[in-house]
C-alpha cells in the first residue's frame, strides 16, 4: 500500500523536476559561467533518484504480492518463485515503461557527469532535448499506463505472469535490451544539440562514439538473449523468425551499426557530418517506432501486453512531435562544412565505410518494408497478409556476398588515398577460401554455385581477419575481433541452415520411430509437481547414425496461474551440434507430437555474437586511437 503511494508520488515529483530542470538549465544557458550550474547536476541526480525510488517500490510491491496494485494483480501470483516476481516487474507494459524512464534518466545523468570537457551550451542543450523525451514518457506513464493504480476491494490472488516469460534469459533480456534501445535517446539528444551549436566535429565524433558503442553493445547482447530464449522456449527450433517484433529490434541495430562506422569517418576526417546527424536521429526514431508498433497492439506478439488505442495514439503523436522537432532543427541549423569533402577518393577507407553504410541502409529498407507493408495494406485495403522468411532470405542473403567481400577488403585500405596492399596474399586467401568451401559444400546442397560463392566470401572474411589476429602486427584489434565475430556468425548461420535436419512425428509411449538408421525411442513419462506448475517429463532415447545414444527429457508444463501449457525443449549442446527435442500434447494423452532437430554449430552463433560485442567493448575501453 505504502510502496504504491511512494512510487506514484515520486513519479509525479520526477515529472515536476523535469519542468524545473528545463527552467533552470535555460537560465543557465544564458549565464556567463564557464561550467554548468551545480544545481542542474543535482536536479538531474535527484530526478534519477525519484525514478529509481518509484521503480524500487514497484519491485517491492511485486515481491510482497501487493494485489492492491493493479499491475501486480494482473501480472503476479503468490506461488511464483521470487526471481520471477522480481522480473515480473518489467515483464508487463506499465513496469517496462518505468524501466524506459529509468534508462532515460540514468543516461542523461551519466552523460552530464561524463561530458565535463565538452562545451557548456552543448551539454545543456543535450539535457534539454533529453528532458523533452523524458517529459513525454512521464506523461505517457502517468496518463495511459500508471503502474500504481489501486484496486479495491483488494483481491486475494493475482492473475499470474505468462509462463513463457518465466525464464532466466527473458528475465534479463528487457533491461539489457532497453539499455541499448533507450540508450539511443542520448545519441538523438546530443546530435540535435551539436547541430544547433554547429559542433558536429572531430571532437564531438570522438565523444559521442562512446555512447554509440554502449548502445550498440547492449542492443547486440539484448537481441541475442531474446533470440536464445526464442530458441529453447518457443520450441520452433530456430533462433530468428523474422517476426515483426524481432525486426523492430533489428532495425535500430542496423542503423546503429551504420552510425558506428561512419562516426569513425567523422572522428578522423570531419566528413559526412549530415549523414552522421541523420543516422543519429533515425536510430532513436526507429526505436520509438518500434515501441509504437509493439505497444499499440498493431503487431501481435508476446510483447503486446494490452491493446489500448489510447496508448498507441499517444506514442504516435509524441513520435510525430519528435520527428518534426528534429527535422526542423536539422534543416534550420545544420551547415555542411565543405572543408574536407573535396579530397574524398574512390579507393579509401572512407569509401569502404560508405559502402558499409549503403549495405546497412539496404538491409534496413528490406526489413522495414517487410515489417510495415502488411500493416499498411491492412489499413488501406483491409487485406490480411503476412511476409515470411523467404522474403527476407531472398533479399538479404545474396547481398551478403558483396557485403562480406567489401568487409574483408575495406579495413585494409588507408584513409584519404590508398592502394590495396599485399594483393598476392589476399588472392591466395581467396583461393583457399573457395577451394575449402567447394570441398565442404559439394555434397551438401543442390544449389552448389550459389552456396560456394556465399560460403567462400564468408570464409574469405574469416581468414583475412584471423590472419590479422594472429600473424600480422595488429593495428586495430577491436575492429578485427568484431569483424572476425561477424564472419563466424555468418558461417555458423549458413552451416546451421544447410546442415540442420528435422523429424516431426506423433508418437505413443513405448513406441519406436526409425528413419535412416537413426532411432527415436519413447521410453516413458513421469509427472512432477511444482509450486506453480505440474509437469510431464518424457524420457526419450535417441540413437544417431553412428550408433551413439543420447537421452533427452523434454517437458510439458501445465501452469496453474494462468492456466497455460508450455513445452520445455531439452537440448544437448556440444561444440559441433545441438540435439533439440520438444514435445506437445495434441489431444488426450495417447499421442505426443514431437519435433527432433539436429542443429550444427548452434553454440557458435551465440559465441560469435559475443565476440562481436567484445569487439565493441574493446573499442570502448581503448585508451588511444592508434594510427
Amino acid at each position, binding site marked *: 500500500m505504502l510502496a504504491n503511494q511512494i512510487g506514484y508520488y515520486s513519479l509525479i515529483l520526477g515529472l515536476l523536476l523535469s519542468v524545473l530542470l528545463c527552467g533552470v538549465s535555460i537560465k543557465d544557458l544564458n549565464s556567463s559561467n564557464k561550467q554548468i550550474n551545480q544545481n542542474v547536476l543535482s536536479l538531474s541526480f535527484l530526478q534519477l533518484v525519484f525514478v529509481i525510488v518509484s521503480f524500487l517500490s514497484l519491485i517491492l510491491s511485486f515481491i510482497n504480492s501487493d494485489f492492491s496494485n493493479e499491475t501486480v494483480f494482473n501480472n503476479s501470483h503468490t506461488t511464483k518463485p521470487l526471481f520471477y516476481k522480481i522480473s515480473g516487474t518489467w515483464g508487463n507494459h506499465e513496469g517496462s515503461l518505468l524501466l524506459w524512464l529509468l534508462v532515460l534518466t540514468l543516461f542523461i545523468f551519466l552523460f552530464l557527469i561524463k561530458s565535463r570537457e565538452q562545451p557548456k551550451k552543448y551539454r545543456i542543450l543535450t539535457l534539454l532535448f533529453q528532458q523533452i523525451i523524458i517529459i513525454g514518457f512521464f506523461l505517457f506513464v502517468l496518463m495511459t499506463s500508471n503502474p500504481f493504480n489501486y484496486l479495491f476491494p483488494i483481491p486475494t490472488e493475482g492473475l499470474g505472469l505468462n509462463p513463457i516469460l518465466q525464464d532466466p534469459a527473458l528475465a534479463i533480456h528487457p533491461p539489457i535490451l532497453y539499455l541499448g534501445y533507450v540508450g539511443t535517446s542520448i545519441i538523438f539528444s546530443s546530435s540535435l544539440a551539436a547541430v544547433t551549436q554547429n559542433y558536429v566535429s572531430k571532437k564531438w565524433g570522438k565523444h559521442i562514439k562512446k555512447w554509440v558503442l554502449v548502445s550498440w553493445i547492449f542492443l547486440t547482447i539484448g537481441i541475442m538473449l531474446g533470440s536464445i530464449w526464442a530458441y529453447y522456449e518457443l520450441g520452433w527450433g530456430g533462433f530468428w523468425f523474422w517476426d515483426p517484433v524481432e525486426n523492430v529490434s533489428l532495425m535500430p541495430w542496423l542503423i546503429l551499426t551504420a552510425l558506428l562506422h561512419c562516426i569513425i569517418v567523422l572522428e578522423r576526417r570531419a566528413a559526412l557530418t549530415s549523414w552522421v546527424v541523420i543516422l543519429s536521429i533515425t536510430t532513436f526514431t526507429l526505436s520509438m517506432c518500434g515501441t509504437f508498433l509493439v505497444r499499440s497492439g498493431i503487431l501481435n506478439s508476446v510483447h503486446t501486453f494490452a491493446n489500448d488505442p489510447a496508448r498507441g495514439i499517444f506514442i504516435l503523436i509524441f513520435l510525430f512531435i519528435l520527428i518534426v522537432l528534429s527535422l526542423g532543427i536539422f534543416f534550420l541549423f545544420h551547415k555542411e562544412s565543405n572543408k574536407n569533402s573535396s579530397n574524398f577518393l574512390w579507393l579509401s577507407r572512407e569509401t569502404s565505410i560508405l559502402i558499409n553504410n549503403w549495405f546497412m541502409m539496404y538491409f534496413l529498407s528490406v526489413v522495414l518494408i517487410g515489417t510495415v507493408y502488411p500493416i499498411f495494406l491492412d489499413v488501406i485495403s483491409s487485406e490480411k497478409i503476412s511476409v515470411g522468411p523467404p522474403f527476407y532470405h531472398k533479399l538479404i542473403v545474396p547481398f551478403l556476398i558483396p557485403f562480406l567481400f567489401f568487409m574483408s577488403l575495406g579495413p585494409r585500405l588507408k584513409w584519404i588515398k590508398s592502394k590495396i596492399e599485399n594483393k598476392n596474399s589476399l588472392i591466395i586467401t581467396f583461393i583457399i577460401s573457395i577451394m575449402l568451401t567447394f570441398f565442404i559444400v559439394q555434397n551438401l546442397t543442390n544449389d552448389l554455385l550459389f552456396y560456394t560463392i556465399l560460403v567462400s566470401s564468408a570464409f574469405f572474411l574469416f581468414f583475412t581477419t584471423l590472419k590479422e589476429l594472429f600473424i600480422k602486427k595488429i593495428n586495430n584489434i577491436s575492429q578485427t575481433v568484431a569483424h572476425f565475430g561477424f564472419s563466424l556468425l555468418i558461417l555458423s548461420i549458413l552451416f546451421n541452415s544447410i546442415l540442420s535436419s528435422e523429424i516431426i512425428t506423433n508418437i505413443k509411449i513405448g513406441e519406436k520411430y526409425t528413419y535412416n538408421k537413426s532411432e527415436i525411442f519413447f521410453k516413458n513419462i513421469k509427472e512432477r509437481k511444482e509450486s506453480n506448475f505440474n509437469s510431464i517429463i518424457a524420457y526419450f532415447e535417441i540413437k544417431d547414425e553412428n550408433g551413439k545414444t543420447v537421452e533427452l527429457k523434454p517437458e510439458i508444463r501445465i501452469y496453474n496461474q494462468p492456466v*497455460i501449457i508450455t513445452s520445455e525443449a531439452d537440448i544437448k549442446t556440444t561444440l559441433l551440434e545441438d540435439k533439440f527435442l520438444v514435445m506437445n500434447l495434441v489431444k488426450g494423452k495417447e499421442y505426443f507430437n514431437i519435433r527432433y532437430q539436429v542443429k550444427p554449430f548452434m553454440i557458435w552463433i551465440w559465441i560469435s555474437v559475443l565476440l562481436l560485442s567484445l569487439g565493441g567493448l574493446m573499442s570502448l575501453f581503448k585508451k588511444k586511437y592508434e594510427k
Partner: protein
Amino acid sequence: MYGKKVKLRFVFLGLILASVILIVFLILQSLKENVVYFQSPSEIKSLIELDKKKIRVGGMVKEQSVFINSNEVNFIITDFKNEVNVIYSGAVPNLFAEGKGVVAEGFLKDKNYFLATKILAKHDENYMPPEVKEAIGGN
C-alpha cells in the same frame, strides 16, 4: 563543358539513383512473390478459382474434430458458417486445442481440403489473432 569533379558527381548521383530504383524494384518484386494471404473458410467457399499459392486459413478448431495418428493430425477449421478440413503433419503448437482459435498455413487441395504445412503458435490462452476474430465475426 563541365569540370571533371562535377562530372564525377553526376556519375555518382546516377549510380545512386539507379541502385535505389533497382532496390525498390527488387523488394516489391519479391514482396509480390512471397506474400501469404489470409482467408476465412467462408472466403474459401466463395472462391471461383483455386489459388495455387500458399495461403493462411484461420478460424476455430471445431469441437470433436481433432483426429491424430502417427503421422498426421486432422481437424476442421470453422468460422461457424463454413468449414474446411485440414490435413497436417508437423509440429503442433501448445495452445492448439478444440474450441480454440487457430491459423494454419499451407495449400488448398480443393475447396474442402487444406494441406497445412504449418500451424502457428500462439502465446496466450486469451489471445485470438485479429484475423480469426474477424473471420468468425465476433468480438
